[in-house]
């Protein structure tokens, strides 16, 4: 895990991240692609939505004697399922806020001049970055108490708060890497010139380095957000109420007919796709813009 990992801190790097490293070579290829792709992608969203509707209708038509078609089932239950999707969004947003609040100082600490602090921050980051998200979720769900007692006050910890903490841990570690990567991507000469202008280390960091980092950190941070949103369905494995948990409830309520499995999970797939795909496109366009400015 050398310094090279820094620039690729976010887990699945978008193509332009690597292409950007050879920007001089690849730049000409990126540009002409932009315009036609975007229109294709808008079409793609429409196609996906239309195909799902068709597929559900088709499944409905091919199940003879079934009490209710998949299409009717979704038509009945979609408000509940979308409410579940909203829980997913809330869990991911809360995890993102907590994870970022802890991850940014941790990332700054990783560039500290103090060796023990730097080592500790590095160790914590690497540990939580390399552990599977599902295991961290299990860890939080099973090892945290259901309530904590502070100064005689009893603070209950319902399962979704534990789930939020479980998702905040990997967010923290990834944000920490994003921050470290961004700080280290600023040329050293800037530190030196700031020093020669009489800035203290802290002033240099907060007034010169970090403001530039925000722009560099935004695309990988959005990438992480999209990933954590998709991971919130893992909470269904430990029984937290969210879209997939509710989907399973709906399946049970409809008599657990196997014919409903594909359409209902397909519906969840479409919901996530329609939410995450625009974010991914937006992230890519931001990345492209920032790379050109360098």
């Amino acid at each position, binding site marked *: 895990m050398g310094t090279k990992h820094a620039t690729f801190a976010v887990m699945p790097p978008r193509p332009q991240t*690597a292409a950007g490293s050879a920007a001089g*070579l690849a730049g000409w290829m990126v540009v002409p692609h932009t315009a036609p792709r975007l229109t294709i992608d808008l079409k793609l969203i429409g196609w996906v939505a239309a195909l799902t509707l068709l597929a559900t209708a088709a499944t409905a038509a091919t199940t003879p004697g079934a009490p209710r078609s998949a299409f009717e089932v979704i038509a009945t239950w979609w408000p509940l399922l979308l409410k579940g999707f909203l829980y997913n969004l809330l869990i991911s947003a809360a995890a993102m806020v907590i994870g970022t609040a802890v991850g940014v100082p941790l990332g700054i600490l990783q560039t500290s001049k103090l060796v023990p602090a730097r080592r500790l921050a590095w160790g914590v980051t690497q540990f939580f970055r390399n552990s*599977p998200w599902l295991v961290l979720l299990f860890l939080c769900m099973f090892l945290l108490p259901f309530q904590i007692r502070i100064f005689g006050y009893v603070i209950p910890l319902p399962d979704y708060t534990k789930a939020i903490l479980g998702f905040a841990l990997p967010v923290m570690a990834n944000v920490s890497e994003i921050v470290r990567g961004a700080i280290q991507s600023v040329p050293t000469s800037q530190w030196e010139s700031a020093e020669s202008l009489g800035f203290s280390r802290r002033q240099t960091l907060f007034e010169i380095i970090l403001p530039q980092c925000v722009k560099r950190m935004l695309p990988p941070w959005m990438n992480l957000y999209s990933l954590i949103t998709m991971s919130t369905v893992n909470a*269904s494995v430990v029984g937290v109420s969210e879209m*997939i948990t509710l989907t399973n409830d709906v399946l049970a309520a409809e008599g657990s007919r196997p014919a409903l499995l594909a359409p209902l999970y397909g519906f*969840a797939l479409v919901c996530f796709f329609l939410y*995450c795909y625009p974010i*991914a496109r937006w992230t890519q366009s931001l990345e492209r813009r920032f790379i050109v400015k360098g």
Partner: protein
Amino acid sequence: MIAVADWFRWLYDATGINLTYMYDSFDQARMLKGIWLTLELAVVTIVLSIAIGILGAWLQGSRFGLLRLAVNGFISLFRNTPPLVQIYFFYFGLGYLLPRTLDPTTGAMAPLLTNVQWAIISLSLFAGAFNIEIFRSGIEAVSRSTVEAAESLGFSRWQTYRDVVLPLALRTCLPSLSNNLVNLIKTTNLAYAIAVPEMMYSAKQIWADSTNVTEMMLTVLVFYVAIATLFAWAMTRLERAMRVPGFGQQEG
């Protein structure tokens, strides 16, 4: 071996730290089976996802617009939907639609594909979608003049891809690839959700019997961190060994 087992039994008596898989042969067998299946899942999905990545990136450079559109659609779909729901969709949804076959050993009807096979298929497709993008970015970084030189030497399209473009592209995209594959190793434990008896599953069986949740949980965590770190280290070594001077990402 007996001394080790005795020590862990003593540890349990003295401190309450109950690592059953160190002294109970039944738990040990379960644990080893789980670890073995996790490693197997990791290796098979890594190989398949790289194959999907290489093939997909090659198809993306195709002259047929429809083929390119199909590959792009595949990437967008798999990147922007939750892997867990993909696994559910494949295993429960598509698994139900496939025909059933007669299992000769039991005489009962069995699904065409087992849950382990479905887990491998969906995880490979998921990671493969990311790999296509990664390889494409590497291919785009190969300079045009190199490709033209190969063409002028009489290389066919496939030959150019296999002997010139791919070896160069692979080196450029190794850091991103290693990131994605580490991620894949971590994601294999989602197979737990469809009862694939991998490590997480064995750990859960053990803690259900011995109520040693904390110990088993930490064991699983340490194990995953260890293999992920080991793999990342190996990939960094590979990167260094394969580096072409003056090409691709430079050491900072």
